[in-house]
């Protein structure tokens, strides 16, 4: 017998291996099909949510503008003698304009992410003052609901007890604005919001805990999808387009970080964000370890 011929045992082994291989690929295929099915469902949902968005946007842009116009007209007609009456009206204008501005920021940010034009601009950011300024900006909203917002920044010796962390300030600001805005929106009146931040092992951690109505369990996994809102009724108190958390997630992704949500209905939600310190190669495009990444030496291939 020539050596090329297989013994029965070898043949059996070979068959066994091939069987196993085809079972593995069959399993993979099933898994992929499952993913595909899910993606299809999501696409359909996304499509209908998109048309929902268009009907929403009319409501949510036109109504605030109408009230801004009406309120400013009212202010204009106030006589010089009772100028005091203008103040509450101006406050209302401010809050309408504030909401509009915030929603537009999210829309522009989402559009930029979707067109792939988001640029990261890493700078040394004073996290403490950034978060404090966000809390300040939303102060009038938390006051309306009589909420107490506590913020604590834990410094460490590693950072010389300073509040500086290198990251993209504008992105972090929008992330925090969305998170704080959501917490305020869903908090029960006169409750507390706890915000903690600090740097540990080259990673920035921020946690926000509210005592609100929480997020229903079946909604948790869809919470970062675009146009997805907790309450889909058009004139609900839940204003916004359902873009805030998708922008938040996209920004955190771009910064290489993570966001975790734990929620218990009617008890509240805890959100933990972690953002790693950017590696040196990312901000300026080159690795610090020298020539390996440079092009003007040997070892390049040209295409």
């Amino acid at each position: 017998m020539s050596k090329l011929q297989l013994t029965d045992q070898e043949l059996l082994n070979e068959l066994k291996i091939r069987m196993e291989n085809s079972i593995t690929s069959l399993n993979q295929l099933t898994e992929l099909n499952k993913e595909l099915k899910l993606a299809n469902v999501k696409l359909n949902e996304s499509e209908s949510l998109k048309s929902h968005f268009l009907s929403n946007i009319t409501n949510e842009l036109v109504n605030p503008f109408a009230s801004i116009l009406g309120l400013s007209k009212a202010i204009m007609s106030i006589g010089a003698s009772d100028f005091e009456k203008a103040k509450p009206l101006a406050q209302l204008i401010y809050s309408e304009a504030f909401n509009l501005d915030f929603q537009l920021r999210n829309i522009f940010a989402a559009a930029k992410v979707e067109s792939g034009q988001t640029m990261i601009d890493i700078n040394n950011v004073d996290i403490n003052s950034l978060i404090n300024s966000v809390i300040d900006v939303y102060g009038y909203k938390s006051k309306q609901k009589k909420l107490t917002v506590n913020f604590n920044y834990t410094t460490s010796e590693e950072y010389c007890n300073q509040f500086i962390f290198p990251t993209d300030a504008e992105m972090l600001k929008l992330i925090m604005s969305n998170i704080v805005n959501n917490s305020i929106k869903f908090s029960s009146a006169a409750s507390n919001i706890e915000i903690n931040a600090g740097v540990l092992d080259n990673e920035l951690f921020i946690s926000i805990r509210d005592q609100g109505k929480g997020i229903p369990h079946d909604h948790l996994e869809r919470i970062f999808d675009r146009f997805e809102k907790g309450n889909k009724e058009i004139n609900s108190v839940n204003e916004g387009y359902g873009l805030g958390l998708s922008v938040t997630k996209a920004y955190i992704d771009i910064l290489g970080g993570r966001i975790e949500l734990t929620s218990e209905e009617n008890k509240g939600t805890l959100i933990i964000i972690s953002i790693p310190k950017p590696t040196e190669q990312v901000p300026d495009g080159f690795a610090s370890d020298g020539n390996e990444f440079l092009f003007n030496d040997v070892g390049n291939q040209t295409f």
Partner: protein
Amino acid sequence: MADNFPIHYLYPAAMFFSAEPHLVHTILGSCVSVCLYDKERKYGGINHYMLPFWNGQGLASPKYGNIAIEKLIDQMLRKGSRKENLIAKVFGGGEVIDTSSNLFNIGKRNIEIAEVMLKEEGIKIVASDTAGKFGRKIQFNTQTGAVLMKIIQRTVATNTTKE
């Protein structure tokens, strides 16, 4: 002459297109970059996607191949390119993360989506360097369409364990 072109560092999930000459740098692991170049108009664009398909989660960003490729072609056409003048170069899709538990060969699937979509669009892939167990750094000259590539060995990822 290319030395004084502005350098643009392309982040993952982003895209770059400009009619002005640029050198675009990007670093690829299992991600894939499609460089599109208009032979007639002498400009080009590039994407850098991380996953093959958008599954409806989050934003429909060019983090996903099907979106990144479509958007890049769209952008070139909107600028006035004609599809028959476009050529493509495809890089990346390596297996840089240990593949024992990989999510069904992300690198491979990233390459596949580029090949399939470009074929559907009738855009020829004139050069490519894909797959393999290493990363790549590429530099795309948007004026000439030339791509310089450097292999990045996975030394950092595997040979040194965390201290």
